[in-house]
């Protein structure tokens, strides 16, 4: 390959050599008016779009919390709220890009329908355009990345902790162990075990798996993390308000993956300590993963009859631990 190759430059030479009809010069009069318009009109259109987009974004920013949630949870942890704000930004940016490109496609489809059996100007390159739609997206992406970078550091920060919970996922259930209090809660499949944590405190989770890869996912926290054998993941869940939040395994983990539910009960610190004391005085709280797996085995065997009532069964909490003693906490 020698030198720059352009179809146009070789075109005429090639046709000369085979005696074909001489093609018109690239700037033939018939082509000029159209391309002239092309060159001057569209960049203006584009800049108008950007102005409109910026104005819309600024307007949305000024309204603050009025920005809709766009289908996502607003986040009930401080980390989840950070992720939610990033989601809002990405959704607005994504919607703007979608609408711009969608409009251009639909415009082209409607405006340039074939109306006559003519051949349009054979425009193939427009260097200015091509540079613009390369450089602008790069800038756009770098801005998005900047926000992403800041947010992911906030979400993943594990600097402080007041309460520690060791979470172990297994086929097909969860164990929540409180190393500082020698308390353990575990439940399989339909038992829907509860992880009780204090709200408004920094809660560190150490997440592990006893067998295959699982996913620790609490939708309302806008967060999930794999539980993997051989890896201990740590993260903070700083729940803002007391409440009960449903959680579920997201990473496919075998036969009863669909039923691997748990819940997170965020309570006030006082209630949390009362619950801990109650657990410590109770003899039914401790259990090992080994026992749980036996339990899982029997629960699996008996599950065949329960499949038709999953919806209600998962609500009937029969936790091995006594997380239910909290009642409405």
């Amino acid at each position, binding site marked *: 390959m020698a030198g720059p*190759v352009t179809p146009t430059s070789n075109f005429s030479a090639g046709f000369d050599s085979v005696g074909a009809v001489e093609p018109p010069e690239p700037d033939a009069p018939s082509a000029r008016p*159209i391309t002239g318009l092309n060159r001057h009109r569209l960049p203006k259109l584009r800049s108008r779009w950007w102005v409109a987009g910026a104005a819309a974004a600024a307007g949305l920013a000024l309204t603050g919390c009025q920005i809709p949630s766009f289908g996502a949870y607003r986040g009930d942890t401080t980390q989840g709220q950070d992720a939610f704000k990033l989601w809002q930004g990405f959704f607005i940016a994504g919607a703007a890009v979608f609408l711009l490109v969608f409009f251009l496609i639909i415009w082209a489809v409607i405006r340039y329908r074939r109306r006559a059996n003519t051949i349009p100007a054979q425009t193939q390159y427009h260097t200015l355009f091509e540079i613009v739609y390369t450089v602008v997206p790069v800038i756009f992406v770098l801005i998005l990345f900047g926000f992403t970078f800041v947010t992911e550091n906030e979400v993943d920060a594990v600097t402080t902790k007041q309460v520690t919970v060791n979470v172990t996922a297994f086929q097909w259930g969860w164990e929540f162990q409180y190393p500082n209090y020698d308390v353990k809660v575990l439940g399989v499949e339909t038992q829907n075990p509860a992880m009780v944590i204090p709200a408004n405190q920094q809660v560190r989770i150490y997440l592990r798996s006893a067998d295959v890869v699982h996913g620790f996912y609490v939708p309302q926290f806008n967060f*999930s993390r794999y539980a993997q054998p051989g890896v201990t993941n740590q993260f903070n869940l700083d729940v803002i308000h007391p409440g009960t939040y449903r959680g579920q395994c997201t990473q496919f983990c075998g036969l009863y993956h669909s039923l691997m539910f748990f819940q997170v009960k965020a309570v006030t610190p006082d209630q949390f300590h009362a619950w801990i004391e109650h657990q410590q005085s109770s003899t039914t709280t401790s259990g090992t993963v080994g026992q749980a797996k036996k339990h899982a085995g029997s629960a699996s065997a008996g599950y065949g009859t329960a499949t038709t009532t999953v919806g209600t069964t998962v609500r009937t909490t029969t936790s091995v631990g006594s997380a239910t003693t909290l009642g409405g906490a």
Partner: protein
Amino acid sequence: MMTDVINPPITVPGSAGGIRVPDVHDGHDGRPHEHHGPSGILKWLTTTDHKIIGLSYMITSLALFYVAGIMALGIRVQLATPDGSFVSFQQYNELFTMHGSLMLYLFAGPFAFGGLANYIIPLQVGAPDMAFPRLNALSYWLYLTGSITMLLGFIVAGGAADFGWVAYAPLSSSIFTPGAGADVWIMALALTGFSAIFTGVNLVGTIFYLRAPGMTMFRMPIFTWNMLVTGILILIAFPVLTSALIMLFCDRHFGTHIYDVVGCTTLANPGVTTPSACGSPVLWQNLFWFFGHPEVYILALPYFGIATEIIPVFSRKPVFGYKGMVFATMSIAALSTGVWAHHMFTTGVVLLPFFSLLSLLIAVPTGIKFFNWIGTMWRGQLQFKTPMLFCIGFLLAFLMGGVTGVMLAAPPIDFFTHDTYFVVAHFHQVLFGTAVFAGFAGLYFWYPKMFGRMLNDHLGKWHFWLMFIGFWVTFMPQYIVGLKGMPRRVATYPSDLGWQGYNIISTVGAFIIAASFAVLLVNLWISWRRPVPAGDNPWDGHALEWFTTSPPPHHNFTHLPPIRSERPTWDYNHPDHPALHHGPKPPSGPRGDGGGERERVPVG
């Protein structure tokens, strides 16, 4: 010079006004006459003709597409109710595993690089066949064997593989997934993996060495360019998958501990992340996705190429920003080898900023492609025949999938959408948008070339509109239900979370899509019963394949037009309408390699 090594080995002296290629029926080159060879089933079994192999690939992969589509309907029926009992948990897990495996490994890739590319690439570069015709035949037979092997999983004891198409370790180990179904699945993929590698070799070899005189690299149609890059990506990605699978097989049967943590003591040590002397389940994820993400572009680039062939033809314009398109394809391929861990953001063991930035950057070359497609249509004369309609569908579907892909490239957003139906909706929109919308655009576009008969345009439009509506009805609700927290790969879900409505809509959409594919079958049947002759160039096509007959003769061309741009057939038919360049003037005059003079000389 590149053109010095690309001369096809066959020639005839004394041709003028382009190149005359000898008629293979003459037997001048010592080959047996075509009609003296075997016929019927024996011909099919022994052929090395890229066209017959390509058609075999397409028919096989389309059959598997229908099988996998029926599996998808089973999945959707199960999910239409919260406590669906259409299939058992075990059957459900097998269904989605095989649906994904068939669609991704056996349909989307092979349909493009084994089927369409196999058929079209030699035609587009003006070659008589692929570079290694026997290797090509071996590819197909390995692919067919692998496909049958994978389907055999359903009849072995314990059922087919049920660990998802990604087969995450250690769920795929012999402890958690005993039974022959998993082994059959691994062997099937090893076979089709080799098939893909051989096809990759063939594509790269053909495009580098078998181009006709005058067909310089920068005169190749974009589809050819994309298949070249796809071939290189196949050579990068598939060996990794095949080796990873062989190691998995060793773990399952020969006592190795590559992907498992047997003997590790991680549970006793909170905070200890890497115990010594242990296998690593994360290694599987790294290897798998190092294959898996280039694979996504192995599935996408050919279909980008198809759209880039079709949109210019039905706009009556050259592709806008041809060279930008080529470099965008290369950028996508380069970036695609460095983004695999965006499938692993939630593992907690990957460098988030690096993979996030590279994933976001893929939006740039993809955006360039979008603007080039729009630029091609801009001020064109758009005609909405079926292939063009499917391309518009592709643009809109891929736009939606692409925008949500940018969202997923941000780890904090991926954290709460990963493994939910949001991701399911995203990748179905991307893959359905490319492999199905653009793939069937290609089928409607090249069917007349392959069989010399037209598909009914009216029925084609029915197919399109049903599929287009079904597509949005199926996948848009999945975004919403995913954001509400519905995980993927669940056979049941709680009834009190308000998920059922979205799932019902999605199921209805899936059946609309299924109806559209019934229309396609009717269309194919009609074209066989009441053929409408297509002629050689029914669409006023641009590239070389439209210069030869429909279907092409045994070795594709009896003569070639002069090749002076990436649109030789257009140039031949419309000598007054060459492509225009706006912006800085290109250097004028003949090229340094004497391209103008060479083509007059008979090759050989």
